[in-house]
Structure formats: structure tokens, C-alpha cells
């Protein structure tokens, strides 16, 4: 179904450059637009405005409005156009202004994009990428701060990734684009300004593979997105007390990297899942269950713990907003109690 396309190779140069998370995503999109003429960007105000978070800034000047398309404020229709375009030979990257607005487009993402290949018995493909700025911490309150990873992770046919570093933000976006199936990329809004060394040129970060950001033998923390950084800060503090925490950056919610998590829990015997989405029925529930069902069960030396978002919408008041999602101190406290056998 997909049109034959000329793909210009941009080889990795072996060099790195310091970029912000947002710049790394923009770099990935520019590389994609350069190397593959079927790639188009779609979304609300992604043109001259540069996107709600300035991620697509200047791309319209470089690639023109035919390839960097402002869509009307039509999330359902826009997502559907991206699905139809992907079904027939384009490779759209569709930006939702806020991941919350994807609720307007659930029909096209969940009923169409995720299922078309299957419903059509493998005769069709929907290589679309949905970019979703997500997460709290910006004072934007209940309808602009949510973390929907688990929602989409529940849908067979979708892949869901959550980069936590500029390097992965670029590598996972390029991997999402190279994937023959729909991929949802959750970008944490508080990470957009985070700087890091990013390889120049084209490369992909494998989807479905977690990254061990810190090794340790006492407690395993599986965290995603901004929680990775909070977990690393907590781990550094605990190391001063002699508690060695292993921090796994989940990176991919679906497919989930069972092997890495199981191996770590077998080593430490203690597991703490940290995620920003609502705790109940969240990503941590899946991780807990997969450990409980796996051979790692017989290595557990404490009940599995979860730190997730409060059972409430994200509130406006800054103190309430902080209280609604796991913070470094929460992670530190629970990890310490786990390590000391107090849980």
C-alpha cells in the first residue's frame, strides 16, 4: 500500500552536540523530513507559531507549508487525516498540542489506527506517529497536565514510548517513524528545556528496550519520563546512606521490556515503580503484575511498591500540583524503607 519512496540516508557522524530535549525532537523531525519525502508534520499551530511548546519552530520556513501543515483545531479529524495519509503512503508525524486533547481523537487512534492492520488481516499498515506533550508541573491544571501512557498502552496495535533524555527523544522519535505501525510518543513538558549530549545525524533508539540509568543491588526503581530524573536524584541521596538503588528508565510502555526489569528484580529483590499517571490501573500495575507472574517472584524480599499520580485531577495550586505526583522525597522515603526491610 505504501508508496515507493526515496529515502536519503543521513549517516550518524559519531559526533554529539548539546541540545535541549525540544531541540533534539526538532532535529529528529528535520532529519526525517530531509531523508524521506513522504514524511509530513501535522498539528495545530505547528507552522509559523512553532507549536505550543516551540518544538517545530522554524521548520515551516525550511520545509514549507506542504510538509509542515497547520491543521484546524480538529483533533479527531486531524488525527484521522493522519491515519488515512499513513494508510495510503505518507508518514505523518501528528502533534497534539497537549496529550489531554488526544481524548478528542481517541476514536481515530484507538478504533482506527491501532486496529486497521489487524481488521484488514495484515493487508494494511498505518505508520503514523502521534507526538503528545504530557505531564504536570506547568500550572496548567486538570485538562492540560495529564499522563495518558497507560490508556494507550492498553491498546494492542499501538506502541507507546516515553523518552526521558534529549538523546532518546530524538532516537525514539526516529524509531517511531521507522516503525511500520502507529507509535505514540509522550514528551514530558518539563523536559523540553533539559539539555544533554545528542548524537548528530540519523540514529534510532530501539522501541521496547528499557535503559539502566544507574546500577545498584538493594532496590530496583522502574521510572519513566521525568520520574527517571527524580528517581536518580533520590538514588544519589540514598547512596550516601549506603543504599544502592538501580534505576531503570522504562522508555517504552508498550511493548514493555520484561527482561530488563525481571533481571533487575531478581538481583535486588525489591521493586518500586514510579510513574506520573494515576496510580490505580497505571503503568506500575502492569510492571508489578509482570513481576508477580514471572520467575522474579521467588526473589522478592518485600511487597512491590508503586508511586503514581494521585486519585484526583491535576490541581492548579502549585503545592497541590506537586502533591499530586511523586516527588524526589517520596521516592527517597519509599526506596529507603524498602531497602531497610520496613515495608
Amino acid at each position, binding site marked *: 500500500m505504501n508508496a515507493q519512496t526515496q529515502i536519503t540516508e543521513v549517516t550518524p557522524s559519531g559526533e554529539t552536540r548539546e541540545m535541549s530535549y525540544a531541540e533534539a525532537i526538532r532535529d529528529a523531525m528535520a532529519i526525517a523530513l530531509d531523508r524521506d519525502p513522504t514524511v509530513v508534520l501535522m498539528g495545530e499551530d505547528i507552522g509559523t507559531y512553532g507549536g505550543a511548546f516551540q518544538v517545530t519552530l522554524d521548520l515551516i520556513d525550511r520545509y514549507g507549508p506542504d510538509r509542515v501543515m497547520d491543521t484546524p483545531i480538529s483533533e479527531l479529524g486531524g488525527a484521522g487525516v493522519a491515519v488515512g495519509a499513513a494508510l495510503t503512503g505518507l508518514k505523518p508525524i501528528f502533534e497534539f498540542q497537549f496529550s489531554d486533547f488526544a481524548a478528542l481523537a481517541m476514536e481515530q487512534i484507538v478504533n482506527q489506527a491501532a486496529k486497521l492492520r489487524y481488521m484488514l488481516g495484515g493487508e494494511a499498515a498505518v505508520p503514523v506517529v502521534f507526538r503528545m506533550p504530557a505531564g504536570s508541573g506547568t500550572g496548567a491544571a486538570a485538562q492540560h497536565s495529564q499522563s495518558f501512557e497507560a490508556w494507550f498502552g492498553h491498546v494492542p496495535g499501538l506502541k507507546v514510548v516515553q523518552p526521558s533524555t534529549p538523546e532518546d527523544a530524538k532516537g525514539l522519535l526516529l524509531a517511531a517513524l521507522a516503525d511500520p505501525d502507529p507509535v505514540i510518543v509522550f514528551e514530558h513538558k518539563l523536559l523540553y528545556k533539559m539539555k544533554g549530549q545528542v548524537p548528530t545525524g540519523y540514529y534510532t533508539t530501539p522501541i521496547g528496550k528499557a535503559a539502566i540509568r544507574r546500577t545498584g543491588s538493594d532496590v530496583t526503581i522502574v521510572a519513566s519520563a521525568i520520574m527517571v530524573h527524580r528517581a536518580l536524584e533520590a538514588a544519589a541521596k540514598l547512596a550516601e546512606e549506603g543504599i544502592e538503588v538501580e534505576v531503570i528508565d522504562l522508555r517504552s510502555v508498550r511493548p514493555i521490556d520484561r527482561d530488563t526489569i525481571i533481571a533487575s528484580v531478581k538481583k535486588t*529483590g525489591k521493586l518500586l515503580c514510579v510513574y506520573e499517571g494515576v496510580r490505580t490501573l497505571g503503568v506500575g500495575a502492569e510492571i508489578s503484575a509482570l513481576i508477580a507472574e514471572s520467575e522474579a*517472584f*521467588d*526473589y*522478592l*524480599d*518485600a511487597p512491590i511498591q508503586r508511586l503514581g499520580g494521585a486519585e484526583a485531577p491535576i490541581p492548579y495550586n502549585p503545592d497541590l500540583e506537586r502533591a499530586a505526583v511523586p516527588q524526589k522525597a517520596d521516592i527517597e522515603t519509599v526506596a529507603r524503607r524498602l531497602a531497610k*526491610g*520496613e*515495608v
Partner: protein
Amino acid sequence: MPTEVIMPKVDMDMATGTLAVWHVAEGEAVKKGAALFDIETDKAAMEVEAPASGILRQILAQPGQVVAVGSPVAYLYAEGEAVVALPAETPSAAPAVVAVAAPAAAPAAPAATPSQTVAQVANGAADLRATPVARRLAREAGLALSNLLGSGPRGRIQRADVETALARREAAALAASAPVFAPAVQAAPDEWTAQPGDLHVTTRKGTGTPLVLIHGFAADSTGWMALERALPRDLPLIRIDLPSHGRSPLRRLSGFADLAKTVVQVFDRVAEGPVHLLGHSLGGAVALAVSDIRPRQVKTLSLLSPAGLGPEIDGAALNGIARASTADSLAPWLKRLTARPDGISHDYAKAAMLARIDPDLRAAQQEWAQVLFPDGVQAFDLTAALERVTAPTLMIWGRDDRILPWKQALAAPGEVALHLLRGVGHVPHMEDPDTVAALLGRHMK
């Protein structure tokens, strides 16, 4: 009549035992006194001797099964004696199997005794808490968890608890390989080396004000097990192992004040607000000293047969216990601890000896006995401290205490509540844990 072979009680607070292995196969002959089967407690794997000569028949408990104390596990028949059908309808005929440790072992309780089985389960292994890794390690090592003390919240057995038990069992195996009649496992050296590190503290999580426990001379925190079972399950506990005792490092001691100072330091670290404080014997003296030094941190004070309230003490027993290097030399002294000496079996003494298998520990405790109780006299006097204590104070003493005479309790001022237990010796928390727990419960309210 065939001779009943039962699961013996070898530990004072033992309610069940795990049958580890049979040394004699069904149908084989065995001589009285020969090793018949092994059982496991938290202290060790222990041999049980044949109570009579005969042919072993009707084995009722398979390896891995947890059996209630006193239940038959097999029968010994005389040569040519007709085998009597097991009275299946009589509950006592079948062993009260409490739990099956190994999944592959025989099915649980016989159908004929369901009510008894249920009752045993309720009191025994069903409410045992252990982490998966603790269960796995125990399973792999053939160790029963039911008698382990868990250091985790609500008494949950964790990996470290199993590892400690396994280390002890290993030490026991080494000791057992030495001839029984050898003069000593290993003579206590004159020279021993003090060790660095903090005192060993274990906690049990719960709700409300915690109870801090300080054990007596030559004991350790595992001695609280019977009392802990009698106390409310949600009562948080903080157990301190005195230096040179249990899992705490070995320390030299200049005198009682030195010991009190060391414990106060630990107390300051573990007691986050006012706590209930309980001490036994030497630990009672320490608890009294702590209450004197930190009056605002002690909500209530409870003393079981406390030291420090008079000069008399059975110094011979203390020295004997500290010095004993075999179960045979330990047992006679242990018998002095309780009102009913027959409660101390040889097997119990063997188990107690295992906790004292480290010759350096014994050497350190002998030195302590010289410092604290020179010439069989209590070299420290806390009666003035008892006068000063402001926290409500409870004192429990056994009328048959042969180590510290109960009359020393009369040194207490009028505000102190005194309970003198009949038929109880020096270890009321082991001899009558239910009464002690009930008194404590009222006192701490």
C-alpha cells in the same frame, strides 16, 4: 501395645516442629536411644532418639510436614507384635499436620481430623508472613519457616532472617559433627577481640507507641518470641541486642554505667518519641537506668525480674551459663532459670547451646559476668534510680526465681505495681507469656 513416637517439644515456646528426615525406614528395626528422625526449629536441625526399641511402623508425618508438638508421628512395635489398626476416628492418632513445607510432600491433614487441623492452622503456619525470597531460600535449604522470627513489618520473615537461620544451622551441623562426649565444642579463649559496629536492633512494625525490649544476661532478642506471640499483633516492637549478645558486636565493658551509656545511645537513635520500655533481669536494670537518664522518652516502664535491686544473685548459674561449652554442661544451669526444671530437655539445651556456639561470645560474656557480678554479687545498685523514675512502672517477678530473689522487689517505692507469679522462675516471659502479656497490656494502656 506399640510405643507412640511423638513430635517432642524441644523449645520452650515451640508449638510445632517440622519433621526434616527419617533416619529409619518404615519396617526397619531401631534400638532405643538411636537417632530416629530429625526435626527443625529456628535454632537447628535436631535429632530425636527412639523412645523404645522396636520396628518402626505407621509413619504419619513425612519430611517437610509441620506437626503440632505432642502429636504422634509413628509407632514402634515389638518384634512379632501384631500391627494395630490406627484409630482413624481418634484425632490424636493422626499427627496434627499444620502445614506442608514442601509442595511435593504428602497431602495435608487426614480427612478424619478436619476440625483439629483447622484450629492448628489458625494458630500456626497460616498466619506466617514471609517474603517470596525467604520462602524460596527456606524451601531450597529444607528449612521450616514456622519457628523463625521475622524482622520485617508485622513479623514478616525476610531474606536476612532466613540467612541468619541458615548460618546457625550450618554452625550446628559443624558442632554436631564433633563427638558428643568431646569435652568441649571449643574452649573459650582467654583473648577475644572487641568488634566495631552498632548494636543490633530489630523492629516489628505496627501501630501506636512502640515497645522497646531489652533482654537479660546471656540471652538475646530471640528470647522474646513467646511473649511477642502473646502480645497484640499490631504492637510495634523494637528489640535491642545488648553488646556481646545475640547479633550485636562484642564489646569490652568497664562497668554497669558503661553498659547503660551504650544502650542509651541506641535508645536515642531508635526511640523517635516516648516509648514503652521493657527489660528482663540485666536488661531490666538497663531499662531502669534508661528511664532514669531519659525520663521524658519513657511512657511506661516494665521490669521482669530486674537486676540492680539488691546484692544477691546466683553468680554460679550466670558463670556456668556463660562458660558452658556443651549442651551437657549448659543444661544444669538452664534448669535453674525456670520453676519447672523438667521443662528444660536435653534437646532444648542443645538448641540453646547453638546460639552460643561462638567461643568469643562466650569469652566476652564470662568477662562481663566478672565485671557486673564479681564474686557472685550485683556490683551495681539501682534502687535510688527506681525512686526517681517518673514513668508508671510495672514489676513482675516469679516467686520461684532462683537467680534473683523476688524479695528484692520490696525495694520498690509504693507507686510501682508489683506482680508475683506463682509457679514461675526467673523467666516469666517464657514460662507464662500470656499472663505477662496481659499485665503489660493493661499497664501500657
